[in-house]
Each structure stands twice: as C-alpha cells, then as structure tokens.
C-alpha cells in the first residue's frame, strides 16, 4: 500500500478516537471543547511508559487511557454540575491549562547517551517504540483499526445496554432523567471517564505513530474538530463521528479539491449542518429509518429461510 495512503488511513483511525471521545459526552448532552487535553495526557503518559520506562506498547496505551480516564473523571466531578456554555468554557479552560502545564513539564532520562522525555515547549521526541521493535507502518495501521473496531463494538453493545439508554436519556433531558431515578451526576462522571479513556488511547496511538509530541499540537483547534466530527456525522450512532472524520480528512483534505480553503469549507459545512440537521447527517431519526429499511430488505430473506427450514 502507498505510504501516503497508509499515512492518511492512520490519521483517520487515530483522530476517530478523539471524535468518539467527544461523541460520548455529546450523547449525555454535554459539549466539550477540551477533549484534546485527554488526548495530550494519553500521548505523554503512554510515550513516557514505552520510551522511558520500557513498557510494552499495549501496556503503554492502556496506561495512557487509564491516566486520561482518571483525569477526565476527576475533572468531571466539579464541572459536570455546570451546563451548556459554562461546561464548554470550563473544559476549554482546563484544556488550555493542561497544554500550558505540558510547556513547563520536564522529565528527561539519559537513554543510550541521549536525553529522552518531555522537554517543556520543545516537546517529547524519540518515542521510538515502533522503530526499536521493527513494527511496520502497515502493522501499526492494523493495530489502530483493530482497536477502533473493538471500540465500535463496545459502542454497539453500549447502545443496546441500560447504560446506553441512560446516557441518551440524560442527554435528552437530565432533569427528567433525575426525576426517573437516574443518578445523573454519577453517570455523567462515568461518561467523562469513558470519553477520557478513548481520547487517551487515541493520544497514545498518535504519539507512537508520529514519534513526537509537543504542547501546541493539543490546542483548541483539535478540540473544535473533535466536536465538529460528531456534529457533522451525526449523533444517532457511533459511526456518525467517523463519517465526520472521513468527510474532513478523507475527502476535504486528502483529495486536495479545496487546497488551502479546506478550513473555510469545513467551517461552512459545520454551520450549514447545524442549521439544516442540528444532530448531524446520521441523527437518531436517520439511523431509525436506515434500520427499518434494512429490516424490510433483510426480513423477506429471513422469512424465506425460516420457511425452507420448516419444510420437510
């Protein structure tokens, strides 16, 4: 496969994690401009684990996800009592705080005669796990998509579970959910933790894919994009944010149709969709219609196979 295509597909896979992270919070009715903070925490934590502590990649990624989840849940305790604009501003402020803290964060270790580790504003270079362990770009791409598929499977089960119903119920009307006996605050903290873990795993993959990170990567633009992917693709299914990522990186950027005007087109697309389809292309109604249509198509076949089975 062409290196460029592998690069684009890897980017689509990695950025999908932060898009899904924002989607979890959107499900519970919260708009976060701060998921890039957990992406950063995951990137730094897993980079430190593999580059400085010599952990295996899987453990490093899990560590990045766990640290980001803990940070998100801790942030969730005081902030998820806020709503709407106040919550959005609080998450944005936290993300900027994290970015600035990483500009001050120095933790370097001498490895093979070279200082390796986070070095303030200069960032964290030489996260060389894939090179030191001879993992090819195609193998890493497969790893990204295996993890993404596992995440989507998790979402599919979540949507069918009581937890998924509670998340959507809270997102629709948290007062009504509270009156129905749902411990809204507790579930919102749980959602924040899951969202943090997803962003953290994405950050870990990003750090190992690019081999370097620096604080300015994790500025507000990344947060805005992660949120916009869900709003473009739709909130009816976890595939929605992935559609958003595909439209932005897979079509607008990679095809070069819009060259330097991509951001203008992207911004315009978000604005138009928010007016025309406020819950994205694949909103709940669209997903319901697609499911019904799919059942209609597949049911005659199913009925036919059942009849054939019954026939002697």
């Amino acid at each position, binding site marked *: 496969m062409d290196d460029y295509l592998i690069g684009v597909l890897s980017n689509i896979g990695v950025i999908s994690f932060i898009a899904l992270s924002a989607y979890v919070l959107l499900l519970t009715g919260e708009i976060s401009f701060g998921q890039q903070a957990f992406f950063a925490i995951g990137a730094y934590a897993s980079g430190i684990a593999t580059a400085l502590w010599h952990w295996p990649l899987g453990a490093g990624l899990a560590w990045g996800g766990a640290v980001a989840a803990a940070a998100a849940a801790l942030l969730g305790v005081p902030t998820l009592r806020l709503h709407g604009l106040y919550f959005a501003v609080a998450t944005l402020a936290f993300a900027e705080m994290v970015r600035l803290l990483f500009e001050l964060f120095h933790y370097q270790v001498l490895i093979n005669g070279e200082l390796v580790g986070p070095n303030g504003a200069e960032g964290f270079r030489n996260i060389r796990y894939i090179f*030191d362990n001879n993992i090819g770009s195609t193998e890493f791409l497969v790893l990204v998509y295996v993890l993404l598929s596992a995440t989507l499977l998790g979402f599919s089960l979540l949507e069918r579970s009581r937890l998924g119903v509670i998340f959507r119920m809270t997102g629709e009307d948290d007062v009504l959910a509270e009156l129905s006996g749902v411990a809204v605050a507790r579930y919102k903290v749980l959602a924040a933790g899951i969202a943090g873990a997803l962003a953290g795993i994405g950050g870990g993959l990003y750090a190992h894919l690019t081999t370097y990170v620096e604080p300015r990567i994790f500025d507000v633009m990344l947060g805005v994009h992660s949120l916009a992917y869900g709003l473009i693709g739709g909130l009816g299914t976890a595939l929605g944010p992935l559609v958003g990522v595909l439209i932005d990186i897979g079509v607008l950027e990679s095809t070069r149709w819009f060259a330097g005007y991509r951001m203008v087109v992207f911004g315009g697309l978000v604005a138009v969709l928010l007016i025309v389809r406020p819950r994205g292309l694949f909103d709940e109604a669209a997903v319901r219609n697609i499911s019904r249509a799919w059942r209609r198509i597949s049911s005659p076949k199913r009925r036919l196979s059942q009849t054939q089975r019954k026939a002697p």
Partner: protein
Amino acid sequence: MRLASSLGCIAAALMTTGVVSSDAAGPRVKADVSCRPAAEKLQYDCAIKLTDARTSETVTGAELTVGADMPSMPMAHNVRPAKATATTEPGTYHARIQLEMHGDWVLRLDLAGHIRDRVVKSLRFEDDLVIDARKPGRPSPPHKH
C-alpha cells in the same frame, strides 16, 4: 454484564498488544536540514545531511522520504511525502516539498532500506526563508549604514 465483559476483552487485548518491550535500541540517525524557497509558490528545496548519531559517520544509500505535518492542526494536513534523492556529496540528500501554507511545520524524515528510522525537525516556512521553528522570530536583516 455483556458490556463489562466486552470492555474486559478490549483491556486484555490492549495489554497484550506488542508484548515485546522497547529495550532493543535500533539504529539512530541524525539529520541536518536546510530548506529554501523554490521557484513555485509554497515549494521548498531541502538539503538533508544524514549521519549516524552514535558514530557520526555519514549515512549513504538510504531510502529517504520527507513528509510534513502542521503542529497547530495535527493529522489534518496530509502533505504527500516527497522522495529524496542522493546528491554527489556522500550522506546528503535533496527533496522538494510542496506545502499548503506558510507557518510552522514539522518535517518527518522517514528512512527505509538498510536503516529504518524517523527524524523530526520543526521548521518555520515563510515566503522568502525557512528558519528553525524553535527559535522564534525572523533573523535580523543585515545591518546597513
């Protein structure tokens, strides 16, 4: 319950991914990069000198590609990697890259072949010059009396 067991499976899969630890240090390459604007807008010619980081010997015969990413919008600007060609000077390569806009870019130098490595360099690409992105500000113009 099903959700918990699925999450457990995902966690187990994560923990066992890449069970080899990163103790084995691969070859390390050091790169000196200097770029200057080419004739076309947003095109830059880069001269890259590769040396072995441990022995300081020049690295010849490498398959080198040069990619670029914008730190302010990671993963969103997929600049098509340019293949570098070896020049007559040993260990020195030339690549022409096409960027999307001026500003700070991180160049990714990917080596394949007998040495597999990646070196990253932060550079600020402006209309008329290219400077190290980690040293803020344009160099002062030559002093005239």
